């Protein structure tokens, strides 16, 4: 079956530009997560949605980062006025159940963002 799909796979932007990263979760999955993975590091949590509600955004590094999931399916992570330290792989994960579940999260292959 179809897994989590992310686009684009690669994105190059100049410092100061805005970017938008898309995530298509597994169909029917209630929970959606965004993580940031720097080179040689494990993924770090950014934000969590249950359906269309953003229940936790405590991991977003600054107010330049914004995420939405307006219809409870596709999600977009937007970064405004990009800076070089934003360069990383951005991973999306989905899970069938909602919060308080310990079901595994299933990850997409990520978007590799490079800021010049």
């Amino acid at each position: 079956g179809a897994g989590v799909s992310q686009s684009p796979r690669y994105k190059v932007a100049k410092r100061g530009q805005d970017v938008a990263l898309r995530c298509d979760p597994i169909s029917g999955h209630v929970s959606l997560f965004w993580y940031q993975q720097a080179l040689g590091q494990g993924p770090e949590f950014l934000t969590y949605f249950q359906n269309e509600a953003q229940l936790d955004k405590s991991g977003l590094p600054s107010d330049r980062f914004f995420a939405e999931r307006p219809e409870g399916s596709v999600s977009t992570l937007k970064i405004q006025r990009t800076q070089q330290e934003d360069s990383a792989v951005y991973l999306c994960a989905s899970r069938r159940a909602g919060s308080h579940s310990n079901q595994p999260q299933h990850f997409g292959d990520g978007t590799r963002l490079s800021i010049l």
Partner: protein
Amino acid sequence: EDQVTQSPEALRLQEGESSSLNCSYTVSGLRGLFWYRQDPGKGPEFLFTLYSAGEEKEKERLKATLTKKESFLHITAPKPEDSATYLCAVQAIGGANSKLTFGKGITLSVRP
């Protein structure tokens, strides 16, 4: 604050040479400990979930175990295709987010 430490950072094995990967963790209350495999340029691929101390799970050449402070991923008679980065993550009880806190990963190389 939840913390996960994995060791060693990198491990090189000869094909058939069994070994173990360590994951030490501190968490206020454990809802689950997860092992993932990550290949270069790919997202993490789910392997196991462990919920309580004493639990063990197996899949092909891999066996995961859990104590109150650490988890081990045992690899028996590894093959070159087992080469990857292995990530350990914990999920804490409480809060609405159920986020995963990951370690840095262990890069495993298996030589033929």
